[in-house]
């Protein structure tokens, strides 16, 4: 229970369905935070909801795991010029690994979260992470790494509801958090400090050259590690260009950012690594989604390389691609 409306309503729904429910809030981050799940006021909200529901509430301190598996790799990835997704790594290592193991050790059968996704059987009868009922809030992308063993122990009670339905349920239940805003962005990055302040405190940032595809220097950036594929702003490029320029390549070793036109960002192929599968490995025709709130595009996958049916905007190395069949997640991988 993060103290937000989704996990609060999830707990209430499970109680209504007759489950024996205990609320748990994860303490992940000890530093500054203005969103996410770690501030004292969020824990207060979760505890007060639990009190109202009449269930026990515990706080588990997984700060060490979060540092090891989320924050340190996040910094490390940026130092290599990659664009990591820390929420996915948190789900992979903390929420659906450490927490599932803790729950098992403590004698719990199931772990429920407030993710907007469902678990449903596909045409072959295999239970898969499946898109939530609210297309705009669907979070199946960020929990693509769940395998059959995890899926068997995870419950997603609000996945069949729209966000409006969830808020209405919270209001009906008289929950104090019914109108609490959705959390935004990465929980350990503050709105005031931003990503650059966070990373500046933890790694060496190097200035870089911004060049066009012919190698002509157009501008300089303060930190090449903070530049992302597809980025358009903050590159120090003069206005008034006939066509906007986008980052097409970032090379930390030579401290070079290459920019080009929109068409230069289109790829026929995307190469991947570290695939994970919800059941058996899958190749062939799939739908592939490259960010949390994008749409899935048709492609052919050979186990390593995605060949897009239509040229696809370049995906930053370090990002996750998620493979769907219909609304069912079959697996995912990291972009090389």
């Amino acid at each position, binding site marked *: 229970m993060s103290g937000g409306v989704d996990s609060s309503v999830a707990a209430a729904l499970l109680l209504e369905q007759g489950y024996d429910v205990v609320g748990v*809030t994860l*303490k992940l981050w000890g530093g500054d935070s203005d969103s996410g799940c770690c501030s004292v006021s969020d824990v207060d909200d979760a505890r007060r909801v639990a009190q109202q529901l009449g269930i026990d509430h515990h*706080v*588990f301190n997984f700060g060490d795991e979060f540092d090891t598996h989320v924050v340190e790799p996040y910094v490390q990835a940026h130092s290599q010029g990659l664009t990591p997704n820390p929420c996915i790594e948190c789900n992979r290592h903390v929420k659906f690994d450490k927490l599932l193991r803790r729950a098992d*050790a403590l004698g719990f059968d199931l772990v429920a979260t407030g993710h907007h996704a469902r678990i449903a059987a596909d045409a072959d009868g295999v239970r898969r992470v499946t898109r939530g009922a609210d297309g705009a809030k669907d979070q199946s992308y960020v929990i693509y790494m769940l395998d059959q063993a995890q899926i068997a122990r995870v419950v997603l009670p609000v996945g069949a509801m729209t966000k409006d339905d969830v808020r209405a349920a919270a209001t009906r239940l008289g929950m104090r958090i019914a109108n609490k805003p959705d959390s935004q962005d990465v929980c350990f990055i503050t709105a005031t400090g931003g990503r650059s302040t966070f990373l500046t405190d933890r790694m060496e940032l190097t200035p870089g050259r911004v060049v066009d595809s012919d190698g002509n220097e157009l501008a300089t950036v303060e930190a090449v590690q903070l530049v992302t594929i597809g980025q358009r702003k903050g590159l120090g490029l003069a206005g008034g260009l006939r066509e906007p320029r986008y980052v097409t390549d970032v090379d930390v070793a030579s401290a070079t950012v290459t920019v080009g036109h929109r068409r230069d960002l289109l790829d026929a192929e995307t190469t991947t690594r570290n695939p994970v599968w919800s059941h058996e490995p899958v190749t062939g025709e799939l739908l592939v989604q490259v960010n949390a709130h994008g749409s899935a595009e048709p492609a052919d996958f050979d186990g390593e390389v995605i060949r897009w049916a239509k040229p696809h905007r370049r995906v930053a190395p370090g990002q996750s691609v998620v493979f769907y069949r219909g609304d069912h997640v079959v697996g995912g991988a990291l972009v090389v």
Partner: protein
Amino acid sequence: MRAGALDAYNAAATGPHGNPSGAHRLARDAQRLLDEARDAVAAAVGGDPGGVIFTAGGTEADNLAIAGVLGARGGVAVCPAAEHHAVLYPVENSGGRVVAHREDGRVDLDNLTAALDEEVSVVSVMAVNNESGVIQPLDPIADLVAKHAPDAVLHTDAVQAAAWLDLPEHTRRADLVSISGHKFGGPMGVGALVVRNEVALTPLLQGGGQERGRRAGSHNVAGIVALGAAIAETAAERLETNARVAGLRDRLANGLLEMVPGTVESGNRADKVPGSCHLCFEGIESEALLFLLEQGGVYASAASSCASGAQEPSHVLAAMGVPRSMARGSLRLSLGASSTAADVDRVLAVLPPAVERLRARG
């Protein structure tokens, strides 16, 4: 609360008493209750009743001791690294000096000596550590302070000691002594700072001039009366209680050390108060253990909790040089005057299988 303290609390809370700061008969009745509690605290802690400042608990007493001396005299505060945060933070945040411990939990006297000089105005060393239960002999520390920081005041946080030690004897060299009601069967949120040798303090709270201007604010009369009753009872029963609880604690600690492999007792048993059983279990996380213990009807703690309620790594064990991997599995099983043989039996039945389960599945 102890029955005697609760009776005293109820009598004071429901009786027709006024605000002791008033001028009429009901105020005088309340003032008499306060004065009697002040006598009881002075007798049990050791000191003059006029030196007793009632506070809202041990934290306020500790803060008043450090900030009060610094405010009145300036200078630098010194404390060991395993002090309660109620001392450690005021010392750190005032730019004070923090002294490393020995591995047995005692203060390293060489390190302390190195931190002492004529700039030092207050030295704070707790009589008994709240996590490890280790008793800190104060006389040699007072000798060092007298020698190397002769103008400094010696404060001791005796919150954890009050139930177990002869405070007039053990803390005799301290100028300031903190106690808190809930550690000896009194109410939570009521404590006292006992001032000896007329040490001057700048108050934390200003207002109506209560407690001789050292702690303003209307008195929590019923709470203070209960505190006085609890500390008087505790002192009267101490020898008998200590002998009985030490026996329970030894059976508990020895039983767990025997039944659970990979268990380490923190500090030396002989250095500890009778109510302290502090163990580290290899290869588990105490947060998970506390959950299973609660399911079995055993309510324990690990280190200290942060504001969110999450268990934080113990700064006390870190100060004693316990590796973090071992400190993650720390457990404080606190016994008190009301602990029974059945309580010990329950822990011995519930804890070993819980540790085994966590090692197998955690």
